[in-house]
């Protein structure tokens, strides 16, 4: 186990302990009595009608899938960005640049397509 792994482990454990501790202390100190009104979800004083867990717009799906695609793209750019200086120092900067430019260019094509088809417009 490296010192980093130990430190991260300690960090996680302590953060979880603090979060849990706050909730537990609050649960111990807090008091109150139950009533039917308190058991209803808040809807500005009116009784709720229908289930809130209805179907949602397909736009959220589009946002999520575009997000994944571009997140993957960005993640591939990180290792490339890290070694870019080394390639430049070795005189192969143009190669490294072209690799990423082609990669980004093809993905920009996708962005332009989505844009043109109106997938990025929130308002129809």
């Amino acid at each position, binding site marked *: 186990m490296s010192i980093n792994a130990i430190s991260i482990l300690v960090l996680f454990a302590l953060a979880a302990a603090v*979060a849990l501790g706050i909730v537990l202390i609050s649960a111990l100190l807090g008091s*109150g009595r139950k009533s039917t009104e308190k058991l209803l*979800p*808040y809807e500005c004083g009116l009784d709720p009608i229908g289930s809130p867990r209805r179907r949602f717009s397909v736009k959220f799906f589009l*946002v999520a899938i*575009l997000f994944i695609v571009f997140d993957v793209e*960005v993640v591939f750019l990180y290792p490339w960005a890290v070694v870019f*200086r080394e390639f430049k120092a070795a005189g192969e900067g143009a190669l490294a640049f072209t690799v990423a430019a082609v990669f980004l260019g093809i993905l920009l094509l996708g962005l332009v397509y989505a844009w043109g088809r109106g997938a990025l417009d929130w308002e129809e």
Partner: protein
Amino acid sequence: MMILDLLTALAKVVIIFAMILGVVPVLIWMERKGAAYIQDRRGPNRASILGMRLGGIVHSFADALKLFTKEEIAAGSVSKPLFYIAPMITFFIAIVTVGVVPFAEPLRLFGYEFNLQIADLNAGLIYVFAMSSIGVYGLLIAGWAASGKYPLLGALRAAAQMVSYEVALGLSVVAIFLLSGSLRLQDIVIQQGALIWDWNVARQPVAFVLFMVALFAETNRLPFDLPEGESEIVAGYHTEYSSMRFALFFMGEYTHIIVGSLIIATLFFGGWQFPFVAAELMRSNMDGVIVIGWPAAGIALLMFGMFLVSRFRRRYRDLRDYETLLFGVPAMLFATLLLIAWAGLLTRGYLDNIPAWIGNAVVFAVQLGTLLAKALFFCAFFIWVRWTLPRFRYDQLMNLGWKVMIPIGVANVVVTSAVMVFRP
């Protein structure tokens, strides 16, 4: 060895948690006071402990006490375990992101090295992004488990907004990595150097603006606070929460601001680098630093004390009136003592040859203070923006994220790498 590692890690985590959790109430006070002054009000100034109001900061602690003793309401239809876990996730994620922030150079004391950075991962900043990408679940679970219409709408808005801006956030720092050639935050700070025009904010202004805007969106702060837009969906994903469970969301938001400010300062403003004075320069001229820095601190403290004493008024005719004197007079006395001690040590020649460990400790303290000061500035900036700008409309928000930030981010990466390659 393992035990020593464990103890060091524990010490670091405790110190950093104490700093963050100590700043949270101060930040809440800053927010309330800042809002008040921007809106031409006085802000919180009533709560007091034995006549001490500390400029209204006591209100933050009074609020915490109140929230701890409030009833925890859970509506009948909530999904119980998820409803309880969600605020903890939000807070946990917000505080865990601090794990890779370097607070100072490693401190060398008597052959032992103490690095005030919890983990120096080779993935560096990506760790922060990974953690904050998990943060979406805190909001999503909260909104879904609460089984109300407002929470669910707020949660979906929050999730869609956060993922949209996560891409811009990640893209903006690629240019930084191009310059630094490393993902480690410590390397990025060292690479920036002490000169202000070498800091990334000057070399990569576009990346800075993108990062800043995306960070505002990630923290769900105004002008990006649609997930809790109170004029439309009450309070968004935390509508159903009460007591300390609500406060965990609240603390999570402020922790997020603090960590975000630390990361902005680290990435773009030289981190712990003191402007124009490199650590080596400071170390080799330690006597000069102490001879000048000591009386400067003393005079600043003296002026602070004089300011407080000058504010003494018989306004309330009770204990509260004497608060300014209670702090002002000791501050002035202590400042005078500091100045006398300085003069004494200087004339006796003690300040001519300072041991290396004192020098290291002073440099460490200066670096830590520099980073915290920079971060505090950005915390204040967050507050200033919140009480100045109006809220976006949701389609404007999405347009900004996808049609403006991402193309600019890609262009910035391409231009930066092209300049790096083709500049003679």
